[in-house]
């Protein structure tokens, strides 16, 4: 070491802790004392991952070719009453030790510039990907801290925040050189959000799905009005494929929405390495063995569940009756409130959960009920039992119920022209966006209401005025199809969306007629 004379023994380095979707500034205080038995302690409600950082930091410093001070080292993570977890304190602790021992020159024990340090260290001194980097960038902007040092693999997450200089750190050695002023790390260029969203390519385009005109139409209405959708049909009918194509007809994410979604994925550590942003609406398809916690979120330090991961996107529950009933029931409250609060020992956290529910089911356990070619082998009682697995309250929250025919291969293969003439997702999306605009104008005074599906009975009465003739028609339909009061309102809401898609102000009888076809009839 060049600086043999050590004057300062206390260093302070800023880092960030994440609590749910919020970030909190953490001051990492490092004291390197001449007196006392050599030791290395970390205090400040640190969990196992944080206290293990002692071994990582020591080895990383040594393997970078520096000397690890053989002194009494005390690290405090302030505020000391906030529980800290994760491996992201490795980097600030290492920097703090180097500052306190004088290996790096700072200003009065502070880092040379005001900055956030965030990252996990490997034993060789490399800086590794860790979750929540976007939140570091966001907090830096809010607190007007101009610089952040984050792992190179996750640096693009923070680079979408304008006004913050993001230094991608490859390893401890690069960082030391940078802080000493020997060789500077090239900061990230700020990434523009909008072009990235516009460049996004959907998973499957609607045009790739042949036939299934009714199901596609229902998907369009669902996307336009935010109505939850249930597809019932035999195996192989194309329910899953349709679901996968569904996000492509939803309006593209707004830049703020994209950040909101990315934040959840960043906290969950689910952004793929090198990805800056969630560019498309999320599509989550949890397996039917998923637990309650997996679905709504939880854990001792609560993590977002599937419903939050599908925030502003689509939650697809394939084989809905196979999900355990208790798991499905927990969906009810978040579906109403569009947010979920989880209380655990480590604190209470709220995650947003405004998703569109897309569900699919077979008509019976064997799947071939009313199949044109295969015979169903299920008895009526077995079918009854199967049906009962989905509770009424869940079905109530689904506005569109659609029967999906099995694909008639022979009919489709003959006519290639028809297949090629299918509408692309972009065309459908145009209509969906127009319909959404109409809704936004309609609900301008209703805070937090964006789509027809969110209307309560009160709003239905205000915004869905029916002419006398249409009212009579609906009444006749309600009698004929034995519609309950709730089903009656659902029909009106869906009819409102159909009219919006058509760009018509008044709901007419043909809108009602179509809406009635999506009633709870297939389950």
């Amino acid at each position, binding site marked *: 070491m060049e600086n043999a004379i050590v004057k300062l023994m206390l260093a302070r380095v800023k880092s960030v802790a994440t609590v749910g979707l919020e970030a909190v500034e953490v001051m990492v205080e490092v004291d390197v004392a001449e007196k006392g038995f050599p030791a290395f302690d970390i205090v400040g409600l640190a969990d196992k991952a944080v206290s293990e950082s002692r071994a990582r930091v020591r080895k990383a410093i040594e393997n970078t070719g520096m000397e690890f001070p053989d002194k009494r080292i005390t690290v405090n993570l302030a505020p000391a009453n906030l529980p800290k977890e994760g491996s992201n304190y490795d980097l600030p602790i290492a920097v703090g030790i180097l500052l306190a021992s004088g290996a790096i020159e700072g200003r009065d024990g502070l880092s040379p510039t005001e900055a956030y340090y965030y990252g996990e260290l490997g034993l060789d001194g490399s800086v590794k990907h860790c979750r929540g980097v976007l939140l570091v960038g966001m907090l830096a902007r809010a607190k007007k801290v101009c610089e952040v040092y984050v792992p190179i693999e996750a640096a693009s997450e923070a680079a979408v925040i304008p006004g913050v200089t993001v230094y991608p750190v490859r390893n401890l050695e690069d960082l030391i050189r940078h802080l000493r002023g020997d060789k500077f790390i090239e900061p990230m260029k700020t990434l523009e959000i909008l072009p990235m969203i516009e460049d996004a390519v959907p998973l499957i385009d609607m045009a790739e799905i042949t036939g299934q*005109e*009714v199901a*596609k139409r229902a998907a369009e209405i669902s996307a336009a009005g935010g109505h939850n959708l249930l597809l019932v049909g035999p195996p192989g009918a194309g329910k899953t494929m349709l679901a996968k194509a569904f996000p492509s007809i939803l309006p593209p994410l707004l830049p703020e929405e994209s950040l909101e979604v990315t934040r959840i994925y960043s906290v969950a550590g689910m952004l793929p390495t090198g990805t800056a942003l969630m560019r498309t609406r999320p599509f989550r398809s949890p397996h039917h063995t998923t637990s309650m916690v997996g679905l709504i979120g939880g854990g001792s330090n609560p993590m977002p569940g599937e419903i939050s991961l599908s925030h502003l996107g689509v939650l697809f529950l394939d084989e809905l009756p196979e999900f355990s009933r208790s798991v499905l029931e927990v969906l009810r409250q978040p579906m109403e409130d569009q947010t979920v609060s989880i209380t655990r020992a480590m604190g209470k956290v709220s995650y947003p959960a405004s998703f569109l529910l897309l569900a699919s089911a077979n*008509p019976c356990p064997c799947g071939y009920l009313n199949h*044109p070619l295969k015979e169903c082998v299920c008895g009526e*009682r077995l079918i009854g039992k199967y049906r009962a697995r989905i509770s009424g309250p869940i079905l109530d929250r689904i506005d569109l119920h659609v029967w999906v025919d099995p694909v008639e291969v022979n009919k489709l293969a003959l006519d290639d022209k028809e297949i090629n003439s299918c509408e692309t997702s972009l065309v459908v999306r145009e209509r969906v966006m127009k319909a959404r605009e109409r809704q936004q104008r309609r609900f301008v005074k209703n805070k937090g209401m964006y789509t027809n599906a969110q209307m309560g009975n009160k709003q239905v009465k205000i915004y869905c005025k029916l002419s006398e003739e249409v009212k009579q028609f609906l009444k006749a339909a309600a009698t004929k199809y034995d519609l309950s009061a709730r089903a009656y309102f659902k029909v009106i809401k869906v009819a409102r969306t159909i009219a919006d898609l058509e760009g018509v102000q008044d709901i007419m009888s043909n*809108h009602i007629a179509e809406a009635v076809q999506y009633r709870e009839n297939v389950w």
Partner: protein
Amino acid sequence: MGEDLIGRDDKNFPEKLRVVKPVVKQIWYRGKWENNIFKKCCAVVGSRKMSRYGKQVLAEMIPKLCNAGYSIVSGLMYGVDQEAHKLALECGGCAIGILGWGIEAKSEEGADKLIEKIVEGGGLILSEYPDKTSARTWTFPQRNRIVVALSEKVIVVEAGEKSGSLHTAALARKQGKELLAVPGPIFSPTSVGTNNLIASGVAKSFMLKNTHSEQVQRLGMKLNESEEEVVGLLKIEGPMGVNEISRRTGSGAGEILSRLMKLEMSGILSEERGIWRML
């Protein structure tokens, strides 16, 4: 629970049951025993897997039978049997249910509730098995001979190729009763048995007398061009799914759904699991 026994020697023992073989020694019953109830009986039997078509037929058939003074006899199985009884009760008719298990045995849930309703509605529940005899594979065919014996008419509403209802039909023939079967779509697996009965000449074809004229009347209704297009297509090509109708007519699915619903409201078309057909 109020079950009673009536023996073969009792003067109230139905005359019709004395002639049946194997001999019916005694009958346990629930409900109020009145000989009048056996005066004019019609058995309505059919598949456990009732289709919507079967349901539709029953909805037309049962009120007419009840109005004509028939008591509806059936076997209380789920599907056609139970539906027939439910409808009979709804239109104020008499229902006689013959159990394939002991009079005190607990039936499955659906049947249990129906039994209570039949008793409340002045109908009768009969069984030749005492106490809590549980149902066996052989008790059902045995029970069928009583169903047939009590009735002068036996109507098979829906039956698959190997349906138990065909056993009832065979008994009806043996006992010399009038046997009717409801013709069904040739594609429907639940109508294979009934169609076979008609084709082989064993059963007469059950027809609702005014169906034809009603249909003619309905079709006399004024349809607009676009409705005509759909009706015409279904008339010529037979039952079809919405997707196909949409493809054939070149109109969007939403538009077609709306048209179909209006035609269903007018009673011209009906739908089952996405397949539309002329009524």
